[in-house]
C-alpha cells in the first residue's frame, strides 16, 4: 500500500510532564502516503500524548514532527491545513446543530458550497445520520458525536488523518463503514495514523504498526515484519510483557 512519500515524520519526539516524567521518549516513526499506520500500547503508554503533539494540540520538549515536510513546531498552521484529527472522546460545540458544525469546519477549510454539500451528503448517508444533522449536537448520543467528528474530518480531504481510538462508541455497522472509508481514502493517497486497543482491528486494517510502552517505541514496522506468522496479539503480549 505504501507509496513512499513521507506524510508524517516523527523524529526523536519527547514530551516531559511535571517533575521530569517522560510521557513520550525519543519517539521516531514515519507514515507514508497510503499507509494505515496503527499505534498500539497499554493505557497511559503515551499514544494520545504523541497523537496530540502531531496535530498541534500539545507542545513538546524535544524532537521534531513534520507533516508533508512542514514542521509542526514552526509551521503549525500549514500542518493543520493538511491534517484532520478525531480525538477519542470528541467534545464538540454542543449548541450547534450537526450541519452547523460541519459548515463551520467547511468554512475553516474554505470548501465551496457545492463541494461541501456533496461530501457532507455522501458521508452523512454512509454513517446514517443525515436525518439528525438538523438537531443540536447536545441531543446526540456518544456514537453520533463520533460519527459527526469523523465526517468533519473527512469533508476536507486531508493528506493526513489522525484518529485516537476511532472505533470506541461506534456501532458495528459504523465501524465497518469507517474501515471501508479508511481503505478508500488511503487508495487515493491519504496517510492514516491511528491509535487503538483493538488488536484484531489493527491486524486486519493496518499495513504498519508501532507498539509503544512507557513512552518508548519498542517495536515498529510492517505487519509482516512484526508478526512473522504469529498473531498481532501474541506479538504485542510478548514485546510488552517481555
Amino acid at each position, binding site marked *: 500500500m505504501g507509496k513512499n512519500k513521507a506524510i508524517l515524520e516523527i523524529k526523536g519526539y519527547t514530551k516531559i510532564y511535571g517533575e521530569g516524567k517522560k510521557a513520550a521518549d525519543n519517539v521516531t516513526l514515519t507514515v507514508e502516503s497510503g499507509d494505515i499506520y496503527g499505534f498500539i500500547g497499554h493505557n497511559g503508554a503515551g499514544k494520545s500524548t504523541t497523537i496530540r503533539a502531531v496535530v498541534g494540540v500539545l507542545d513538546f520538549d524535544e524532537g521534531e514532527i513534520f507533516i508533508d515536510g512542514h514542521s509542526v513546531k514552526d509551521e503549525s498552521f500549514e500542518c493543520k491545513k493538511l491534517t484532520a484529527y478525531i480525538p477519542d472522546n470528541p467534545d464538540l460545540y454542543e449548541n450547534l446543530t450537526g450541519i452547523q458544525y460541519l459548515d463551520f469546519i467547511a468554512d475553516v477549510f474554505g470548501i465551496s458550497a457545492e463541494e461541501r454539500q456533496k461530501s457532507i451528503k455522501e458521508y452523512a448517508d454512509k454513517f446514517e445520520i443525515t436525518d439528525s*444533522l438538523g438537531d443540536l449536537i447536545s441531543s446526540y448520543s456518544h456514537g453520533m458525536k463520533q460519527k459527526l467528528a469523523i465526517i468533519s474530518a473527512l469533508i476536507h480531504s486531508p493528506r493526513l488523518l489522525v484518529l485516537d481510538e476511532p472505533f470506541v462508541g461506534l456501532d458495528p455497522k459504523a465501524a465497518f463503514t469507517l474501515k471501508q472509508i479508511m481503505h478508500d481514502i488511503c487508495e487515493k493517497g491519504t496517510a492514516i495514523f491511528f491509535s487503538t486497543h483493538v488488536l484484531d482491528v489493527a491486524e486486519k486494517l493496518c499495513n504498519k504498526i508501532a507498539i509503544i510502552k512507557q513512552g518508548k517505541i519498542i517495536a515498529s514496522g510492517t505487519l509482516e515484519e512484526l508478526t512473522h506468522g504469529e498473531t498481532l496479539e501474541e506479538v504485542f503480549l510478548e514485546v510488552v510483557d517481555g
Partner: protein
Amino acid sequence: MGRNIILLKTLLRSTSRFNSYKYCKDKKKRGKIVGAWVGAGILYLMLMSYCIATCVGYGHFGLTAGIPAMCAMVISLLSFVFTLFKTNGYLFGFKEYDMLMALPFEPKSIAACKFLYMYINSLPWYLSVSVSTLVGYAYYAKPSFAVYPLWVILSLIQPIIPMLGAAFLGFLTAKLGSGFKNKTIAQTVLTMIFIGLCFGSRFFIEDMLKNNKTEEVLSNISDITDKTGSVYLPVKWFGGAVTELNVLYMFLLIAVTAVLFTVVFTIVGRSYRQINSALGSHAAAGKFVMKEQKQKSLISTIAFKEFKRMTGSVTYMTNALIGEIMCFGMGIAVLFVDIEKVIKAVTKGAPLTSEMMVPAIPFIVYFFVGMVATTCFTPSLEGKNYWIVQSLPIRKKTLYQGKMLYNMFLTVPFALFADVTISISAKAGVVNTLLSAVLVVCLCAFSTAWGCVCGIKHIKLDWENEVEVIKQGTGVVVYLLPNMFVTMGLIVLVVYLGTLISSAIVTAGMILASAILAALCYARAMSLAAKQD
C-alpha cells in the same frame, strides 16, 4: 449530615485554586494562580476602600448610626445580584448532575450543597464589606468589644436570606422555563423579567419612602438606608443586633435564615429531579433534509459560532444581554418620558439639565452596553472544545477577530439605538447626535478590544462550570471594575467640560481618545493572539 459535608468539601476542592496550586507541578500554572490571588486581593481592597470611603462620608456628616444598616444593605444587594446571575449555572443543568444524582444523596441535599458552595465562594466579598465597614464604624462610634465579633458573625449570616431569594427566583425560572421547547430562551426571558421587576420595585419602594426630594444627597441615601430597614427587616435586625446588642434581633436573623433555608430547599428538592431532567433532555426532530449550503468567511463563521454558544446558555445570555436590554429599555423610555424628569430622578434632584448632559449621553449608554464584553470570557469559554480550534488551521488572530466581531454585532445596534433616541429626546441637535453616535461606536470598539485583551491574558480553559468564567473569571473582573469606575468618572468629566467648552468639541476629543485606545487595545489583543499560535 457527614455525607453532605463531604459533598460540599469536594465541590469546593474541585474548583479551589489552592488545591490546584498545591498539586500542580507546572511553575507557569502556579504563577498564574498566584497572579489570580493577587488580582482578587486587589479587587477586595478596592471594595474595602469604597466601603471605608462611604463610612468616612457617613461619619463626617454625623450619620455613624446608619453604618451598620448600610453594611447590611450592601452585603444584601451584592449577595442578591451575585446569586441571581449564577443560580441557573450552579443549581440547575450542571454537568456533573448525573454523577451526583447516581450517588446516595437526596436531591435537596445536592441543591443545598451547591447553594452553600456559592455562598462560601462569595464570602471574601461579604467579609471585605463587613470588616471595612466595621473599621469605619469602630473609628467613629467607639463601640464595646462585643460588637466586633458579633458584627462579623452576623454579617456572615446576612447574605443568606437575599441569596435564598435569588436562588428561589432562579428555581422559578428554571421550573417555568423547563416546560418550554426552547428552554434556554424561555429561562433567559423569565430571568430578565424577574430582574426588571426587582429593579422596578426598588425604584417604586424608594419613591414611596421619599418625603423630601431636595434633601442633601448623602442624608437622602442615609434616609433610604434607614427606611429600607423598615421594609427589609434583616437590615433592621442586623443594625439592632450590633448597635444595641439586641438578643431578639440576633435570634430573629439567625432563626429566620435557618427556617427560610429549610423551606426553600425542601421546595426546590421536590422538583429538582424533574427540572434537571427537563433541562437535560433535548428535542431531536430527526427530519433534516440536505438543502443548498452557503459558504461564509472564516470570521463570520466564528462569530456565528459565538452566537450559537450564547443562545445555548442561560448564564451567557443573561450576563451578556443585561446591559443591552437595559440600554434598549432606556432608549424606549426616553421616547415617552420627559428626559428632564429622568435626569432629576436619576441624579436625585441635582441641578443638571438635559443640555448639560448632552456630552455624557454616549458614556451613559456605554455604561450599560460596556458593562460586560463577551470577549473577556469567550476565549475561556472554549474550555474542553479548545482542541477544535487548536487542531484546525485557524490563526488565533482570526479566532479572536471573530469573537470581537460578534461582540460588536451585539453591542453596536443597541448602543446606537439608545444613543440616538436619548440625543433626540435631549434635543442635542444633528451635529451632536452624529458625533455622539460615532463616539458610542468607538466606545463599543474599545470595550470589545479591551475585553479581548483581558480575556486572552486571563484565559482559563480547565473550568468545571461556565459560571466560573462568565461570572467569576479574572478576565471579566479585570475588565469590568476599572471600566465601570472610569466610565462613571468620564460622565462627570464630560459634563464639567461641557460647561466650559462646546459639547461638540468635548465629544470630538473623546472620539479621538477612545479611537486611539481601541486601536491600541486591538493591537495588543492581536499581539497576544499571535503568541498563542
